[in-house]
């Protein structure tokens, strides 16, 4: 395996990078504040319609799956249920930002619910995701780089069934429940939050134990087919969507237009993915709730690279890029900015230490 940069999280934040973020700053497309104020408005009604429809689909598909168990019809029925269940991951993401509902307590209550569904311990993952926004694809600082170079394609494929994520969760949670905070976690969760993180990790372990107990009592795997296992058997669509966010693109650069992707998707996929296909827009203006991202996209489109036409076009690029990166980790898919777009300037964060060949 070729080694290039060291993607392990650094224990300390690098002052050179912090200075670059504070000084040069992340590029943001020009948008009048008045217009941005309209776009960041939260609307309880729109959010409630989206979440109620999702929960209704979950219950309905779950009922069909239950009715077909244990016939062969249960296979497609549970696949549909699993895909809808895993939409919880993109909803978790929105709720972690606290942006869908104007009523914050609703965001927080649903955040705890979908955290349980997705096995994302709410404290650790909130801090991890905050760091991802501060240091998007900055090597050694972003804890959520899904496709380090050179890529490990077999590992990436395991993500289709959440196996990669699950292994990481088992490793981290088994340490945290014992009060042992792994170094990488300690680098982004402040110490004041550790007791709450340990508390929630223990709730998660109790939750998993309750699922197992339910299976033992029922004498069947059926309870876990509804809660827990869908994370494995139904995650393929969400993973396929989410892997497009940054894979194969530039890194160590303070310009989301060059390190993130916006992919056009059909309305069903956008519903399931909670509009996270507008990923450049989300990173540039994370205060904007998911239902306003299409409008934000229209607003700043002329300042951004052309969006990808769909998952097909996106994966053509990702496959060819990752394949080439196996042998040449310096290679990445270059995004082309429109001629009228704001210049990226000297937004490359160059830490010579990262460039060392290990």
């Amino acid at each position: 395996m070729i080694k290039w940069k060291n993607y392990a999280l650094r224990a300390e934040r690098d002052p050179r990078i912090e200075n670059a973020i504070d000084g040069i700053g992340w590029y943001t497309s020009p948008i009048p504040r008045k217009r941005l104020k309209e776009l960041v408005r939260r609307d309880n009604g729109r959010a409630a319609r989206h979440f109620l429809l999702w929960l209704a689909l979950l219950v309905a598909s779950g009922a069909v799956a239950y009715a077909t168990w244990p016939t062969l019809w249960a296979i497609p029925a549970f696949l549909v249920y699993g895909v809808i269940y895993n939409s919880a991951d993109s909803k978790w993401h929105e709720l972690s930002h606290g942006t869908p509902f104007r009523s914050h307590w609703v965001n927080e209550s649903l955040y705890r619910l979908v955290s349980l569904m997705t096995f994302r311990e709410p404290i650790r993952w909130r801090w991890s995701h905050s760091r991802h926004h501060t240091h998007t694809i900055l090597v050694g600082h972003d804890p959520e780089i899904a496709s380090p170079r050179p890529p490990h394609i077999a590992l990436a494929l395991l993500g289709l069934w959440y196996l990669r994520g699950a292994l990481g969760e088992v490793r981290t949670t088994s340490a945290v429940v014992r009060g042992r905070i792994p170094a990488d976690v300690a680098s982004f969760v402040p110490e004041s939050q550790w007791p709450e993180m340990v508390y929630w990790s223990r709730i998660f372990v109790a939750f998993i134990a309750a699922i197992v107990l339910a299976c033992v009592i029922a004498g069947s795997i059926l309870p876990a087919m509804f809660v827990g296992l869908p994370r494995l058997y139904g995650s393929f669509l969400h993973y396929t969507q989410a892997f497009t966010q940054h894979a194969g693109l530039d890194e160590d650069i303070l310009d989301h237009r060059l390190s993130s992707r916006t992919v056009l998707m059909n309305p069903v996929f956008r519903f399931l993915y909670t509009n996270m296909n507008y990923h450049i827009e989300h990173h540039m203006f994370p205060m904007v709730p998911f239902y306003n991202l299409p409008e934000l996209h229209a607003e700043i489109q002329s300042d951004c690279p052309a969006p990808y036409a769909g998952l097909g076009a996106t994966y053509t690029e990702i496959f060819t890029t990752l394949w080439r990166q196996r042998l040449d980790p310096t290679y990445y898919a270059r995004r082309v900015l429109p001629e009228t777009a704001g210049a990226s300037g000297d937004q490359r964060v160059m830490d010579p230490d990262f460039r060392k060949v290990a």
Partner: protein
Amino acid sequence: MSDWIDICALGEIEEEDVHRFEHGGAVYLAARDDCDGVFVVDGLCTHEKVELANGFVFGCVLECPRHQGRFDLRDGRPCGGPVTEGLKTYPTRVQAGRVQVQLIA
């Protein structure tokens, strides 16, 4: 007791919005909630020292643009992660249509 410092006309701050100003080398925000409350708070987020002037107000909550950390404008307390430390607030009044503050050290 320190003097009242004149900041701006009340009309210069929209409802549920902020007005950035500097004094003595420090950054502050005058903010208006959705029911005529006016508040002055520190202008940098307690989490990563980001300019809160790029954030927005929802009701009486000021939200940070970087990670959507939330502060209650009335007392500066954090009311939504990932902020853990409150914002400093300052005595504020509206006098003859002008927003004024006491920036007590």
